[in-house]
């Protein structure tokens, strides 16, 4: 079997989408000045909420909505902790991720009591976009995908347009650079950061839902498997720019697809765990080569306190 074929590229896109959604989520919160380490937990909670809702109602789209709502709810909790109570963002984010993970495992056991074969649903099927999907190479790779994938594509220019062309986007970027300046110009930094975290949570929830409603069709505890953490690195790699972040996500989708193929091809005789580690190792390598030269939003991780100036 040839490892690099059209199927490989289609798989790369498929695996890149949750990274893309997660990266856009992290980009939004970081651009507003909040490092959201809760993303891993948000993705996992979104995955479970989406899966169990879809399993209970039989509607995949209700599952998607549930995932978005769950992610946003965790985003709201995170926002209260780091914006209102001004707790340390690193510790809080890790705490939110770990708590969410624990709760997900617990609720899963409550909801699906039978052990043995894991429950599964019929996931989204792919939709070929008329005409576009007939373009050689690009068509089958990019335009024979899931509906959620097309939504993810649209999110990239939409987010860029929002950030760079609208007053609200300018306010968001300014709050992440210098909240005092934004406040002096009449913007409420806490409000902006709060909304950014809500949106980031919603996107992270959607990324989680994609994993089992589109890509895998079942829920396992390891379904997110550190993808949230990778998104943190991809934001740096993509220099906080939606388009560059999308490219970074695609690249890592390809690495993920590559290691999956290596595992199944049997052409390289190595323990499969080594292949599993490939995306994470690639993250480190990419950071070494590219991460040092970048500077993030100036007020990233700085709590805003109107009384202290």
């Amino acid at each position, binding site marked *: 079997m040839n490892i690099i074929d059209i199927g490989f590229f289609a798989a790369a896109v498929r695996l890149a989408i949750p990274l893309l959604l997660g990266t856009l989520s992290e980009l939004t919160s970081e651009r507003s000045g909040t490092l959201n380490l809760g993303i891993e937990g948000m993705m996992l909670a979104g995955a479970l909420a989406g899966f169990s809702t879809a399993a209970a109602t039989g509607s995949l789209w209700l599952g998607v909505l549930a995932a978005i709502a769950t992610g946003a709810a965790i985003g709201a909790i995170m926002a209260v902790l780091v914006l209102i109570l001004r707790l340390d963002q690193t510790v809080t984010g890790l705490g939110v991720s770990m708590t969410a993970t624990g709760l997900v495992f617990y609720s899963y056991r409550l909801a699906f009591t039978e052990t043995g074969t894991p429950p599964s649903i019929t996931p989204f099927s792919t939709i070929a976009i008329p005409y576009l999907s007939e373009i050689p190479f690009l068509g089958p790779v990019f335009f024979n995908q899931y509906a959620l994938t097309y939504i993810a594509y649209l999110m990239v220019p939409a987010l860029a347009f929002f950030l760079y*062309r*609208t*007053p609200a986007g*300018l*306010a968001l*970027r*300014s709050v992440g*650079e*210098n909240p*005092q*300046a*934004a*406040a*002096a*110009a*009449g*913007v*409420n930094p806490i409000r902006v950061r709060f909304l950014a975290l809500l949106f980031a949570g919603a996107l992270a929830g959607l990324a989680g839902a994609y994993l089992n409603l589109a890509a895998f069709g079942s829920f396992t505890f390891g379904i997110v498997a550190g993808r949230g953490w990778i998104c943190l690195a991809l934001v740096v790699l993509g220099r906080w720019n939606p388009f560059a972040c999308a490219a970074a996500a695609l690249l890592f989708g390809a690495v993920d697809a590559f290691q999956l193929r290596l595992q199944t091809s049997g052409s390289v005789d190595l323990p499969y765990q080594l292949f599993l580690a490939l995306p994470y190792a690639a993250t480190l390598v990419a950071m070494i080569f590219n991460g040092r030269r970048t500077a993030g939003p*100036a007020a990233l991780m700085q709590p805003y306190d*109107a009384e202290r*100036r």
Partner: protein
Amino acid sequence: MSEEVPVLVLSGITKTFGNVIANNAVTLEVRRGEIVGLLGENGAGKTTLMNVLFGLYRADEGTILVEGKQIHVTSTADAISLGIGMVQQHSHAVERHTVLDNLLLGLPGSNGLLDKTSALQRLKEIGDAYGLRLDPARPVHTLAVGERQRLDIIRALFRRARVLILDEPTSVLTPQEVEGLFSALRALKADGVGIIFISHKLNEVRAITDRVVVMRRGEVVAGVDNDDTVTNLSLATMMCGHEPERVVRVPHQIGDPRLVARGIELDSHGSQSPLPINLTIHSGEILGIAGVSGNGQVALAEAIAGVKLPRHGSVSIDGVSIDNPSPAVMQKAGLAFIPEDRIGAGFVGPMALKDNMVLSRFSDAPFSRKGWINWKNILDFANMQIAEYDIRPPDPRMPVGLMSGGNQQKAIVARELAFEPRVLIIAQPTRGLDVSAIAFVHRSLMRLRDSGCAIMLISDDLDEIFQLSDRVAVMYENSVVWETPIETATVSTVGLAMNGSLPTQDAAA
């Protein structure tokens, strides 16, 4: 005309922080097209009052009327929409964004989009009307301090400010830039904007204002029309409540060269690579370093103090050349350095005053013996300095970061002078200090000079340079472009050199 409704009336404003009354029933009125000077020492309550007006603090009592209508300012956004604009001492702008983006920030936009076209149009109008021009495409971090201030003023005008508050607007400007600011203010005044001008610089207050209001200890103690009867002395007396002390330079003996710096080359700044700097400061001499901030003064001080070595150059003290300069080596050689960023570079803010007082010497006798710290000696030393320099609050365990700027400066001066340095480099010694604290610091410097110390005084404040220095050197784009005895310098020649208008030392000589 006399019955015209004032553009702004603050009446009975009271604001307390815990037990401290920052504003006590303060009343202030600004008429259309009037420039009101607001004077007062540090802690007199000026800034608190302006923060109340600008929606950053909420007053406990009192009312605010804009054009006769009572308003409730609960946020900065309210204040802005009510036509109040503020130009703060430290510009609050988003460094990485362009001038245009900073102007657009907080504006509603049109159809949900940023309205760049009409913003550019408005920027041009403001440029034409008031001579306030800026390139909209430049990122803010590339702007000089004066240009940033212009940005703040333009931003207030973008929001159709009817009242403009300027908090110490001239402290960062060259004399020529001050003139530019003043002509813009006069044009605004002619358009009916009411302006509150806060400053410590009495000459400027007298030059630009129509009326002067003086605050002391949270209350308005005087309000006078700015006419011929107003003098610097009368204003300063109103501010302090007694006749202020002003340190006057008296002729004295200048000794042998103490600090000699040769061929110091700083990193390039602007288009040209900087000229090597040669400086000699004699025993008992103060060399004033003038220049707009950001023209290499900090780099020069750090180069000589061994903090950040220059690309080339050598330093000697009392004829002994220093081979491997580092802060510790320079300190051993008798050099003391008081940087302008007191909290960032001079102190560890969260640490107690007593520990900060021995920050660089805690391992020397009598503070340490055989590797053990002697806490009692440190405490005694701190208490002695607190008493001698009247540092408040007189608590050696107080974290330095919680002390006022004036007391921090007293403490750092106390620390460095306690060890009788042979050379002192001091940057912006009185920035942000009030009249009494300034006099104190100036007196300390004079005493040190008389004892034979060679002092390099870096200051943005030309009055201070002229008041204390024996010679003045002007820095521009990381070079010393002009050096002269103080007797042959004038504010205008120094001001020109600060703008780089005197090309080289040779040409000026």
